[in-house]
Structure formats: structure tokens, C-alpha cells
């Protein structure tokens, strides 16, 4: 049984997709209040609010759109206009593990195209599609700022560096088998899509301390400088 919000029109069809259960709504409203309080103007909270509703349902449903519209005082159409602009907001459910393969030029050339081809065939789903068990979805992603580790993949926006077609298939097998999977540079294990969305909404999950501070490629220049005895000039004493 769904409860309509008091300010919702009576004609609005009260199905699961258009409104939240009261206890969910109460929780979301509490979080929304906290998000909105961060900003000088409520509408600035829209992007994190959309991450928030995505953390509840795994995608931005009609209920999610309405919730955000109410929260910041704009129309559902205005919210939808924003949702459709940004690729991270999904308008239909994605897998618990959303797997991205970078196919921008550099990664594609270094092997990303072959990874995508083999992985997509292996998993049996294409771009923006999910497996029937709902565990995994695939996306062709653009440059994710990890080019020194090409070819790069992402799972729920955690880095999987230096991938190969075989490693990619093993990764998806492990995810579907429910095994704990560790990103190359990130937390000790990949969290769920919904949990990741909650972090994007601005709620610290306390896992920042996990994982390495830097990957090997990030340290190459520093290492070479140390080995070669190179350093920045010393500041003069008495500088301003």
C-alpha cells in the first residue's frame, strides 16, 4: 500500500514507481534536509539529491524525480531535464555492479576495444544493458582520468587498472559469483552501486583510509627523482 504525499495531486497514479513508502520517504527527507543545508540555495542540492534517490532505488525513477522536485521546489519536468543531461543518472535499473570499459582513443588503442568486444560477447549484454540476474551491467565509458594505467575499467566508479580481456572476464565472473573484488586503486572491496551513489550524494562511508595512497605509475616521477638525487630548488631563507 502506498501513501501519497499530502501535496501530490489526487489524479497522480499511486504506484510503486511514482512514490516512496512512508518509512523510506521519512529517511530520504532527513537526508535531503542535510544535503540542502550545505548550499546557499536549495537548487544547488539537485545533483546530490539525484545521487541520493539513485542510492535508494539504483536508478532515478519517477518517484525519485518527484521527490527531488518537491525537495528543491521545482517541477518534475525541470528535474527530468537535468537527469537526462548527465550520464551517471540511470533511468532504468543497472546491475549491482556497473562495469565500465574505457573506449576513448588512448584506452581503445591500448586494448580497450578488444576488451569491450570480448567482454560484451562473454557476458551477453551490450552497452547500457544488464544481465538477467541483475548483477552486472556494462557501459562504454569515456576517459576516466587514469590514462597512465590504460586500458582502464571501472566498477561502481572504482579503478581497475591495466586490464586485459581475460582479467575483464574473470572480474565479471567474480562479481556475479558474489566474491569480494578489490579495485587496483580504491577501497579494499567494491561496494554496491547503491552504496557508491550514497557517497556521491555526499555521505562519507568511512572507507577513505582503505587502499593504497597512490598507484605505481603515479609514483614513477617521484621515484626517479629520488633515485637520481633531483629535487626542487631550496627556498631562500627570509623569503616572504
Amino acid at each position, binding site marked *: 500500500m502506498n501513501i501519497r504525499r499530502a501535496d501530490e495531486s489526487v489524479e497522480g497514479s499511486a504506484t510503486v514507481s511514482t512514490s516512496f513508502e512512508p518509512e523510506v520517504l521519512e529517511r530520504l527527507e532527513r537526508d535531503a534536509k542535510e544535503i540542502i543545508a*550545505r548550499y*546557499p*540555495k536549495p*537548487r*544547488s542540492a*539537485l*545533483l*546530490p539529491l539525484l*545521487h541520493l534517490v539513485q542510492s535508494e532505488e539504483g536508478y532515478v525513477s519517477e518517484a525519485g524525480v518527484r521527490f527531488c522536485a518537491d525537495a*528543491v521546489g521545482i517541477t518534475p519536468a525541470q528535474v527530468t531535464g537535468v537527469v537526462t*543531461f*548527465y*550520464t*551517471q*543518472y540511470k533511468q532504468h535499473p543497472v546491475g549491482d555492479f556497473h562495469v565500465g570499459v574505457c*573506449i*576513448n*582513443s*588512448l584506452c581503445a*588503442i*591500448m*586494448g580497450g576495444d*578488444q576488451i569491450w568486444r570480448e567482454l560484451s560477447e562473454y557476458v551477453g549484454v551490450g552497452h547500457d544493458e544488464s544481465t538477467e540476474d541483475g548483477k552486472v551491467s556494462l557501459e562504454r565509458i*569515456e*576517459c576516466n*582520468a*587514469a*590514462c*597512465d594505467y*590504460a586500458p582502464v575499467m571501472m566498477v561502481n*566508479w572504482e*579503478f581497475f587498472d591495466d586490464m586485459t580481456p581475460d582479467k575483464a572476464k574473470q572480474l565479471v565472473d567474480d562479481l556475479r559469483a558474489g566474491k569480494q573484488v578489490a579495485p587496483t586503486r580504491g*577501497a579494499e572491496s567494491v561496494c554496491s552501486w547503491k552504496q557508491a551513489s550514497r*557517497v*556521491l*550524494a*555526499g555521505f*562519507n562511508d568511512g572507507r*577513505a*583510509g582503505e587502499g*593504497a*595512497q*597512490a598507484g*605505481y*605509475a*603515479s*609514483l*614513477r*616521477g*617521484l*621515484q*626517479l*627523482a629520488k633515485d*637520481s638525487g*633531483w*629535487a626542487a*630548488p631550496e*627556498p631562500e631563507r627570509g*623569503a*616572504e
Partner: protein
Amino acid sequence: MTTLTPILTKHWDRPDSFTREAYEDDGGYEALRTALGMPQDDIIQAVKDSGLRGRGGAGFPTGMKWGFIPQADGKPHYLVVNADESEPGTCKDIPLMMANPHALVEGVIISAYAIRANIAFIYVRGEVLHVIRRLQQAVAEAYEAGYIGTDILGTGFDLELVVHSGAGAYICGEETALLDSLEGFRGQPRLKPPFPAVAGLYGGPTVINNVESIASVPAIVANGADWFASMGTEKSKGFGIFSLSGHVTRPGQYEAPLGITLRELLDMAGGVRAGHQLKFWTPGGSSTPLFTDEHLDVPLDFESVGAAGSMLGTRALQIFDETTCVVRAVLRWSEFYAHESCGKCTPCREGTYWYKQMLKRLEQGQGSEEDLDTLLDLSDNILGRSFCALGDGATSPVTSSIQYFRDEYIRHFEMGACPFDHAASTVWAGEK
């Protein structure tokens, strides 16, 4: 010979480098104490004197940008950090925020104090979960230490700092599109003028700076403008992180004075991968015109790269060897621009669409030299006629590839197919 100068990257090899404890242990937040004891205008002057220019690609002098903020106007001022690193090939801010988020946070506090802002935002792209965690944690630790909040270190200066995650849109790296996005709208660029310094976030005076620019501020305050200016070239002072990727033996981050050359950097990175030769490269991301092996000795500073026909951009050095089909690389970049065009202006929206359609055909060898003239004509209708730099950037790979590799396009047409074996370009080529 130019050598590396680790400053921002100096402590990245410390396993706890991202914690406040480690950062303070290595002298972090001392510059903040110094800065808060200085008159604001002196900090702005120091940044001007240092010669620091924006590290996000355009290279606008940072201190001058700060100086445009009208002072004592009674309006709230805003500082916004552009951490939406998405330019293809660019991968410096992400490792910086992962390993050393406190350098950015300290830079934010000093910069906000200087421009008299009491609210600051770090707009970070949403596709980097662990970096967002590290930023959130660093900001929380800075609040705990009293470096952010009310009456910071007893100086009476108040600052709130919000980490704001984007949601997947390259265009939001354009500063005014970023502001629209931060205000909760579709991220589309605004007409300039007015510039953000006059009418930015919520119509108020706003400074928007790249991560690396802001993270460089504590070192300038601590060591002095002269120290910073002692590195680099006459008009491109200081240091920057150079990101080598692609067909290079040891890809990675190399922090060096501006003006270093690719030849020097390649030497440090072990050269182009074994058995292969350099074919083409980007000096600063896909939006900067391609260079070839003719350009190995161009000093990588704003002026020299510009004089040689490209742009320093974000120092994203994507290296491609002779196995790479340039038409394929350009097609993929063009598909990227078509996907990321915000749709606001016609030249970019339609132009990038037609790039994509044409290059797809040409890459398969279905075309003639006449098509190259059409591509160049199309480029003339995008470059300088687009609303923002995204459209201009989209023309760079197309026009520069035709300039240097016209013959390769023609070989595609003659063969009626791509003459390259794509498998030979992969990391695992030659294995098995």
C-alpha cells in the same frame, strides 16, 4: 638538462600521505598559518608575482583572475575548484586528490581567505568514488582541526567547504557550465562577459581554479613568489605535473618545471615502448592539436607549444607509436566530442555529429580526398564559431591529423579499408 622537481608529488610515496597527520608531519598547514597572518592583498600579490598560470589548460594568470574580484562590494564571494578532470589523456588531478587531498584543502582555505570568500566548493567529477572519499575525509579532518569552520585559528575568518560530486558530463569542466551545474541545472556554458569574477555562482563574484593551481598556492606562500618563479621559463613559470600515457615504457606522473621537452620526459620514462617509434602525441589532451616526432624538442611551456601550432593544455602527453591508426584515434575523439557536446550551440552540436558520421566512413576506407576538404570546411565552421572551447577543441585532432597525416587518410581510401592491424597497438601485442 632539465630535471624533475617533486613538490606536489613529493610525499605521495608515504603510505598515509592522504591523512592530515602525514600532511602536517611534512610541514602541511604551516602556510595556512602564515597566510592568515598576512593582509589578503599581499597574498594576491604574491600569487601574481609568482607568475602562476592556470593549470587546467587555458593558462590564465591565477593572481590576475583573483584580482578581478571586486573588493569591499558587500556581496558574498565564492571560490570554486574545478576538479572535473575529464579531458582525454588528463590524469594528474585525480592522483593528486587521491594521494594528497590536504594540499588542495589548504590551498582552498588560503585562496578563499585571499579573495574574501566564506564559501568554497570542490566540484569533483562523479566517476571517481575513492577520490571523492579521500576529499570528504580530508575536509572532515580540516574541520576537526579548526582549519575550516568559524573563526579559523582565532583569526575571525570563516569558511565553509563543500565537496560536490558531478554526475558525468565533460562539459562541466568548462567553468561557466560548471557553475550552472553547481546551481542544479544542465551544465551548459554561459555567455561571457560577464565573467565569473563579476557574475559567477548565484550571480556573485566567483573565482574558479583548477585543482593543481589551487594546490600550488601553499608552496608559493611558504617558499615565496621568487622561489616559484625561479622554475620554468620567462612567461611560463613554476612547475607542473606532466602525465605520460600510451606507448611509452614507463607511463606515469612526472613533476617538472614548465619548459621541459618531450624528448627529456621520454628519456626519463624509458622511451617509446621497445621496438617502436613515436608517431604522434598530444601535448595537453585531445583538444590540443597533435604533434609528431618533429616536435620532440619543443619546450613544453605555454608560448613555445603555441608557437609550434598547438597548446600546452593540461600537459596530458598521450604517446602513440607507428602501429596506431591516426584516423581511428581521431574518429574516437570525435565520437567523444559528439557525445559530450551540450547541444546549446549549433556549430558544435551539428559539427561534432557530422565529424562522427564522416570519420566513421573514412576510417573504413569509404571516402575520397574531397572528403578531407569537407572536413576542413566543417572545421572552419566550428572553430571560433562555437559558444565555448569544447567545439574549438573538437576541431584540433581533425585538422592537425589532416595536416600531418593526409597520406594516411588517402591510404584508407585507396585500400577501401583501414590499413592497420589494431591488435598490434595493444599492450599485449606480441605476447602469446
